[in-house]
């Protein structure tokens, strides 16, 4: 039977980009169905109102939302739609997905992350497993992502450095803020290895893409220069240029229709005019954000899949992951510096790009010996002025702060110190209390059930987060920072999500096989962060890119 396309990809972000690009370059016909609109570099400005105060790049919550379920003190669970709570779980519904708005802190996961269970043993209440592939299987694709996406950095030897097939990054590090000298010194004093953080940001131009303009506004903003390695800038534009790839924006897929053999035959979607459409393809690839991928497959029941595609063993949507950890801040007061130093510290533009991996694995009695830790990243406080000022709206008594008091507080917040922050990333252990299902009541504007997400976490995550946070505070203290504080909680960061369709060798305990193909569906792959059974202790994007390149090679061999 004739199919409309060789490959139909649902979603266009980091998980989708490599498959789209690789298959188009091979001359296969690729159709991309992206729910959001198509912005280009010229549309992206440094406008806090657009990026962060309003839902410009994400849906209006009344139209499309999630239902979030949180645990009460008595152990029961309460759920609330995000249109009521305002807790927005969208990250970027546009061509290129949320990779347009990432900061691009890029880390490889490490060999032991692929065998967390074998290396560190089980933890009660956590569904830890080994991955069905090894670091060696993934390494060539981490490397490929470095050149294809454009990752800048510099390798410095340290005890937890993962093996590499190339000596160093293809792009040198981006420019650095003067505060890194203070960080490096403090780390050296503490006998720690201060590491340059690799970034998916070009330090030198790459083909049509410009290098970074150092505007000082990166995360949360679309990149104007093309330096940020979004799937759009790094992969999709070239894919379209092959003439084999068609991107259809404003196309919301609501169901994958499968036949009596259990194969997917059509993607059903609503177009920009909200008219129902359908398209057929030989192979379907879903990569539309961990939560939404599980939601789409759960909604795609068929003759061989009565509870959703790939859900014959009730694994779909389970073991959702976020990133555990927390963040902290220390202040460096200009009044305590000479004029030259103060002026250097006020620099806006270059990056901090420093992190610590000294405790990626560690040994500690409190943790029963050998344990898995994570990474610490240092960064300046986000320069967005409105959000910075909003903190001054309330006084310590919880009353509104206005008049001359407010103005005095604003002046202090904005002009008296440079604030160095840190963020801790450690494993969000997979548990039975973190999963996606379909909400029985709440629908999106097209009438489809929205995803309900239970947001449970494992206590162990907090213990590790606090351990690392204390180490990071030590560095700030050594640097002479004032007013050091940090916060570690089980509240999930909505922009760091994975899991829900874990891959594995056993259909009874996983949704995808080692190739990221749905076990009992011959022509359906999942290539976003959903495949990850455990998350590693780093932001996910590089791993998502690498895995999508890996699966692209597998798909190439069969079409």
């Amino acid at each position, binding site marked *: 039977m004739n199919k409309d396309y060789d490959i139909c990809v649902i979603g266009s972000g980091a998980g989708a980009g490599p498959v789209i690009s690789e298959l188009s370059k091979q001359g296969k016909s690729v159709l991309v169905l992206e729910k959001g609109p198509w912005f280009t570099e010229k549309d992206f400005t440094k406008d806090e109102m657009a990026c962060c105060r309003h839902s410009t790049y994400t849906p209006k919550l009344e139209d499309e939302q999630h239902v979030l379920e949180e645990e009460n003190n008595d152990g029961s669970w309460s759920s609330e739609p995000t249109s009521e709570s305002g807790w927005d779980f969208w990250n970027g519904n546009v061509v290129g997905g949320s990779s347009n708005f990432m900061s691009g802190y890029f880390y490889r996961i490490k060999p032991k992350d692929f065998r967390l269970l074998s290396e560190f043993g089980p933890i009660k209440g956590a569904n830890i497993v080994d991955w069905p592939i090894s670091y060696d299987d993934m390494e060539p694709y981490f490397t490929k992502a470095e050149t294809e996406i454009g990752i800048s950095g510099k390798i410095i030897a340290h005890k937890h450095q993962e093996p590499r097939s190339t000596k160093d990054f293809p792009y040198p590090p981006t420019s650095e803020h003067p505060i890194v000298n203070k960080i490096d010194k403090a780390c050296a004093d503490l006998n720690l290895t201060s590491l340059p953080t690799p970034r998916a940001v070009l330090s030198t131009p790459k083909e049509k893409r410009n290098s970074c303009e150092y505007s000082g506004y990166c995360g949360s903003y679309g990149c104007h220069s093309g330096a940020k390695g979004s799937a759009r800038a790094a992969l999709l534009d070239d894919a379209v240029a092959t003439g084999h790839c068609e991107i259809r924006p404003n196309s919301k897929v609501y169901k994958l229709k499968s036949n009596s053999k259990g194969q997917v035959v059509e993607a059903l979607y609503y177009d920009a005019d909200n008219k129902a459409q359908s398209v057929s393809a030989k192979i379907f690839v879903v990569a539309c954000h961990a939560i939404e991928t599980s939601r789409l497959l759960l909604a795609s029941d068929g003759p061989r899949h009565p509870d959703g595609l790939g859900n014959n063993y009730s694994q779909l949507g389970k073991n959702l992951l976020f990133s555990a950890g927390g963040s902290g801040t220390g202040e460096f007061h200009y009044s305590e510096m000479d004029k030259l130093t103060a002026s250097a510290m006020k620099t806006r533009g270059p990056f901090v790009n420093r992190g610590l991996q000294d405790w990626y694995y560690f040994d500690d009695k409190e943790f029963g010996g050998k344990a898995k830790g994570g990474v610490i990243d240092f960064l300046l406080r986000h320069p967005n002025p409105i959000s910075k*000022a909003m903190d001054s709206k309330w006084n310590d008594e919880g009353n509104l702060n206005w008049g001359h008091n407010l103005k005095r507080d604003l002046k202090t917040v904005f002009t008296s110190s440079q604030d160095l922050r840190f963020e801790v990333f450690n494993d969000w252990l997979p548990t039975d209390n973190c999963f996606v299902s379909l909400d029985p009541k709440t629908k999106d504007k097209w009438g489809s059930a929205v995803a309900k997400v239970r947001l449970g976490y494992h206590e162990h995550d907090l213990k590790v987060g606090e351990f690392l946070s204390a180490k990071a505070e030590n560095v700030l203290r050594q640097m002479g920072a004032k007013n050091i504080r940090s916060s570690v909680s089980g509240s999930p960061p909505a922009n760091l999500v994975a899991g829900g369709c874990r891959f594995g060798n056993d259909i009874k305990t996983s949704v995808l096989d080692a190739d990221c193909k749905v076990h009992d569906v011959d022509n359906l792959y999942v290539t976003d962060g959903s495949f990850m059974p455990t998350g590693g202790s780093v932001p996910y994007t590089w791993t998502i890119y690498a895995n999508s390149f890996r699966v692209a090679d597998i798909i190439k061999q069969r079409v």
Partner: protein
Amino acid sequence: MNKPTINRRQFIQIIALASTGWPLISQAEKKSRLITPDPSSDLTYKNLSDPWLSIAEVQEHLFPADDTSPGAKDIYALRFLRNMLDAPDTDSEEKEFIIKGVGWLNDLSVKDHKKSFIKLNSNDKESVLRKIESSRAGSRWLNLMMTYLIEALLSDPVYGGNKDQIGWQWLEHIPGFPTPTTEQVYFKLGEQANSNSQRRNRSRRAAS
């Protein structure tokens, strides 16, 4: 510390439970008392009439000018607010609530001080506003006023506030680039640019 954001459902409950000091008025009464903004009035501070006259006074009280820093009028906070309330996506409930609040404000001023709000001295203005703050609906109204003020102070001048970057200059803020043109304001960008719901960036990790 941030006060937790009042969610939409709670907001509706608050309106329903509003105290006598910040009265709940019937639908019919609400209609008759609702002051409709005059579309022909320009966006400067000249020839203002209510509700804008009172709102401009409230803004200046909440964000007063002094010798070294701009006040609400200097940053064109009223122009910003009116632009935002006129934005195609602005929730009509919110707009109505803001305007309705002016009626309540003046009712309370007259009740307590026998004068409308703009005629009060600074101390009396403060006491009226703090009294308003003590009711939940009133607190919500003032919170909105403050939010729009801070946005007027620090958003790109393309939105009508932060006149000639005066807010950025006062706080020594270095803006990014490029800045938006009038065609790139958030409500003109793309298909999805149609929400005025404030995003609550709770525990979003920056280094992602």
